[in-house]
């Protein structure tokens, strides 16, 4: 499966989805003008990836400094997709990485975590 690599811009995060390494990374800020356009390929890739038979654990890392509410909804959609996959037996571990000075990011991570039942969701504060 081809790697998905999107360079960082001011309003969109760096995205690296590597099927071989089983590491999905989203890092930076997210407030694109057109959330749908930016994230549709990301979500499609993700669904593709999860449709493959894979028994090993996949690591998903989020390190987002700022995101707007539209992005927040997209992140929730991503977590929903992952949650469904986990309930179907996939092994996935989400790491929500944030600086201890970024109170909003920590809070948002906690809110996401509250909404999730099956998906392992670690908040790593450094």
């Amino acid at each position: 499966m081809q790697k998905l690599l999107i360079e960082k811009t001011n309003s969109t995060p760096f995205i690296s989805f590597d099927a071989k390494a089983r590491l999905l990374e989203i890092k930076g800020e997210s407030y694109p003008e057109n959330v749908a356009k930016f994230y549709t390929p990301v979500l499609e890739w993700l669904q593709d990836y999860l449709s493959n038979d894979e028994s090993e654990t996949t690591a998903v890392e989020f390190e987002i400094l700022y995101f707007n509410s539209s992005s927040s909804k997209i992140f929730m959609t991503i977590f929903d997709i992952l949650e469904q996959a986990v309930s179907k037996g996939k092994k996935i571990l989400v790491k929500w990485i944030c600086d201890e000075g970024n109170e909003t990011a920590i809070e948002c991570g906690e809110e996401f975590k509250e909404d999730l039942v099956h998906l392992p969701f670690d908040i790593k504060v450094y």
Partner: protein
Amino acid sequence: MINKHFRNIKKDNNTIVDNNSLRIVILGCITIVVALISMSILSMIITSNAVLNKLKTSDLQNMARSISVFVEGKIDKALDISVLLANDPTVVEWIQKEEQSRLEGEIVQVKMAELVNDFEYDVCFLTSAVTNHYWSYSSVDKEFVLLDTVTQTDSSDMWFFETLKMKKKYDINIDHNKELNDTYVWINTLVGDINQPLAVSGVGMNLSKVINQLIEDEEENEINNDILLVDGEGQIYLSKKPEYLEKSLTEYLPGNLVQEILRTNNLESKFDIADYETPQGEYFDIAYKKIKNTDWNLIVQIPRADSLGFLKAIIINTIISCILIILIIVLLFYFISNKIANPYKRALLLNEELEEKVKERTKELVEKNNRIKDSIEYAKMIQQTILPSSYDMGKCLKEYFIIYEPRDIVGGDFYWLKSHSKGYLVIVGDCTGHGVPGALMATAVNAMLNHVVDGICNDNPAVILYELDRLLKQSFKMNHNEKFISDGVDLGIIYIEEHKVIFSGANISVFVVDGNKIDEIKGNNCTIDYISEQQDKVFENYEIAYKQGVTLYMVTDGLIEQPGGEKGYPFGRRRFTNLIEAASKLEMDIQSSYILNTIKEYADEQIIRDDLTLLGFRL
């Protein structure tokens, strides 16, 4: 303005190019001149050293030796001839017979004449110790004559009587004849047994003539050397320079060198070599040696300037070629730098053209941008009309302020107010997105709110939220193509009726400030949208105790989450709570600018990310 600026840059660029080429030319020339000069100086030193070395070890030696071989050869030959004459039996017999035998006398005469005429001697003489007769044949008289009869009393004849006593076969004398102003070599040979000699015979040779002949030969070869003939006392008897003649060597040469020359007893054919500097600073290289069998000195000297003279030609040639090379290099550099400069000029022209194109495009873009901006400005007017007027606001809320700053002229944020006979509803909303899509959503949500409040419920915030969520799903889901995207709206609703305050929120909270106490009542953590699969959405009502002077604030996430500070992190809820607390102590009408300024100061150079809305009012 742009044009002027551009022209300035162009001018500067040209200057830079010109300065550079000039600098390259100068630098190149200096490098080459330095290299040429240092190379020339170095080669000059090496060459002059080598030439000097060769001059001293070889050239001067060879030159001097050829001169000495010539001179000494002549003397040796004269010596041989003298000895032959002295040993001639006819001569011996003629002398023994007291020159009486006429036949023998004629033979002697012929022999002596032959010697003078054939070998170019000046004089051939024969002086008998028996008769004391001095016979002579000279190249001048060409006659065999009895010139004199020597006597012991005549001082000028003393040489004869001393020669008889010398106890060796021959003696060579050099003396200077003042009357003739010539220097002669005299070979005196004893005839018969050296212990009891019969006579003294020999030849006289004009040494000046011999050496002058040499000098003439060398003048033809343009050799500027000098051949000196110096006696044992250091007197100069022969030189090319007339002023040297009959002067002492010490007048011209340093004393220690003269002593060295006079003391030398070099019997080998090799010359001694030395050099000296005249008071005028001229250098001379000098070769000297004794003439064989005499105490006279043969000196050859050559001015160093002459032997190194050809180096001058090298210097002149070097200077000329230096100048030529510099000239060529300057031209070459000028040509090259012009060729180099040309692309710059072309680039500048190209730049100018591109600049023109950019200007045209920019103009087009500005026009398009203005059209869009106008259109959005118009949209803003429409959005303003759906927002409650300040009159309506002032009628319901005694004291209030509103911050309403859409990021892109229009936005997804809105506030809403409706009063009826029992009470009134205050709402702050944040539709996902901002700009035109946000505004479209906001308009739609506004209409739905009106529909819900007018037709379904106007006094229960939680019910209003629930109904709005339902209505939104109904209205939007049918035409929805996007698989993943869910637009929606966050809302905070406060209903106030007499002494009752009820709040319900979807992702929006209310801050309640009562004196020094601040409480945040978070609404439910679920948004109103049209795709969410979440079926168990529950919106709850919270009752806030009514108390006069209590201030309520409802805010959208734009203000709370605006990035800024050193690390670019969002402002944050804790900081925002503190800000509200601080602001609440101020008069209502300056709170808005205080809060907005604080947030914008925090944002510093970070762009504003979202629409900013904050409604504050006092009960």
